[in-house]
């Protein structure tokens, strides 16, 4: 009797084993996960073909929340589209606003005052903090840690949303930025409160990490699961933490240096293995870098106006032309492609949604894994259906 038992094969064979007559010995089961499923983060469906518990085929099905934002954009004025961008990725309305404002500013040749640039950076980094925190909460919940981590995350998120509410009037649908600046200035009391929240955020992250980063269950469920090789990540146009976890150093804050990001001293965390754990870790480290950026912004923010005096809110008609603008939103590269024909409405209004394109490789990540892993893999992509389906 040999003491050594064979290790299970690492790469699962996708084809079912055949008997002598060419018939499959196991039956494949087709499961429709969603559109109403607690793990799909909204109305999203995956058509999964299972061999036992292994995923053999997985096709995502979109469109349950489709309302054709791009068509709305063609039939509404430039400014009128600003509140609609809040509803794309409703976790990160501030960065959505920024991406759109940045594109229109490029199109119309508007400048942004110094103070408004700092406020934009502060808002974007606060957004990044709360988005990544919530995402980790959700995805730990997908692994079965019901409730507690998500409530911790939501407790912290609420502090940031309170800041957003006090400055823009809305927790999530902020509609805060305008072409050539921001809608209202922030006062010193707000800045002091925001500074306090940011100072305490590091302590919260320490606490969060103490529970999660070396957690045995989290390590077992995430390490080596849902791996994306570097070449595939680049070819599949992945962006954001998904891309950087696969080892590609590409952050638009460093590459494009839009806004005033060239002034800040921060690092871009890059993963090594491209698995779920690296995606988790990249997000945690990104939050730490965001805190660094925020501290510098609070230190350096100058006084001054927050709107370009040349910008026109009413009767805004940019000259004909086309422009593509993009920012590093928490989920990846959020881009807007606008074609103007000189009328008050854009001729073409295109949104490049990061989480929609990040889902391109969902099947590649899930093949050969258990169905329970597919849930965690989807959680690690960080999708918001408002943006995926538009």
């Amino acid at each position, binding site marked *: 009797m040999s003491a050594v038992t064979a290790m299970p094969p690492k790469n699962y064979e996708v084809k079912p084993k055949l008997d002598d007559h060419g018939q499959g010995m196991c039956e494949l089961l087709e499961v429709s996960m969603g559109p109403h499923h607690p793990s799909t983060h909204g109305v999203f469906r995956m058509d999964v073909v299972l061999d036992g518990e292994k995923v053999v085929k997985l096709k995502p099905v979109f*469109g349950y929340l489709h309302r054709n934002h*791009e068509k709305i954009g063609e039939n509404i004025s430039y400014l009128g589209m600003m509140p609609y961008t809040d509803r794309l990725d409703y976790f990160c309305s501030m960065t959505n606003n920024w991406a759109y404002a940045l594109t229109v500013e490029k199109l119309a040749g508007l400048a942004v005052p110094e103070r408004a640039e700092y406020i934009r950076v502060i808002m974007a980094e606060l957004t990044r903090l709360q988005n990544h925190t919530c995402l980790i909460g959700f995805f730990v919940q997908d692994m079965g840690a019901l409730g507690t981590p998500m409530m911790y995350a939501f407790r912290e998120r609420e502090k940031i949303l309170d800041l957003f509410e006090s400055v823009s009037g809305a927790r999530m649908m902020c509609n805060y930025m305008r072409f050539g600046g921001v809608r209202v200035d922030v006062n010193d009391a707000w800045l002091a409160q925001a500074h306090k929240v940011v100072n305490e955020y590091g302590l919260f992250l320490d606490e969060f990490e103490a529970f999660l980063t070396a957690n045995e269950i989290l390590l077992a469920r995430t390490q080596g699961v849902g791996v994306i090789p570097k070449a595939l990540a680049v070819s599949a146009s992945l962006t954001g933490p998904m891309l950087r976890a696969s080892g590609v150093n590409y952050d638009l804050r460093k590459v494009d240096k839009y806004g005033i990001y060239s002034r800040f001293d921060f690092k871009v965390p890059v993963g090594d293995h491209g698995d779920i754990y690296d995606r988790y870790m990249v997000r945690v480290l990104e939050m730490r870098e965001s805190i660094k950026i925020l501290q510098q912004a609070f230190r350096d923010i100058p006084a001054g106006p927050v709107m370009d005096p040349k910008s026109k809110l009413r009767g805004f008609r940019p000259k004909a032309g086309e422009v*593509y603008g993009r920012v590093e939103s928490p989920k990846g590269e959020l881009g807007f492609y606008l074609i103007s024909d000189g009328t008050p409405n854009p001729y073409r209004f295109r949104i490049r949604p990061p989480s929609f*394109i990040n*889902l391109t490789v969902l099947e590649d990540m899930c093949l050969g894994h258990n169905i329970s892993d597919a849930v965690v893999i989807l959680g690690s992509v960080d999708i918001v259906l408002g943006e995926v389906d538009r």
Partner: protein
Amino acid sequence: MFTVETLEQIKARLETAFPAARLELVPNECPAGDRSLLVDAASGFAVATFLRDDAALKLDFCSNVTGIDWPEKELTEKIKVRQVVDGVEKEVEEVKKTVRPGFLEVVYHLYSMELKHGPVVLRLRTQDRTSGTHLPSLTPLWRGAEFQEREVYDLYGVLFDGHPDLRRILMWDGFAGFPMRRDYIAPDDFEYEPTPHDEVLAEAKKHYPAEVKP
């Protein structure tokens, strides 16, 4: 444009590499925007392969795929014509009307993640908007175009030859028409109201002419 080469240099190199390709620089009236490179559909795939694999460009990242609908448009142009009016030869301004045939356009924004430059904007145009809406799919080159090309097919009706899985993506299977086209008419989703008035009344009369009393 952040690339080391200008678009003219890229075009010149492409012209030597592909003598048969018809390339054109499309100007952009917006000063901050990028000009784009229009390629004919037949050599689109070869040109895109060149852009991806060329050592100086290495455009490995296809960021954005956009469909655009350009319906048939009447262009008016004022030209001066010499005419004999009342026996005297005069220079008269005349409006000349030409019809630009409609087409669908797909725009690719290409960047390089390795060399961190871009974008090079690549445009492909279909023959027309009805029967000749075929274009080569660039999904075999950039996987990231897969869902985006499906979306362009879904909303505009561009048929991508060589796409591995060309199905509708945002609209449901069996949906007729292409909703992002400029001439698309949305279905009349009239809901019944017991006491219709104003526009609702007009709609109601259209739907239930026999039942609705003014």
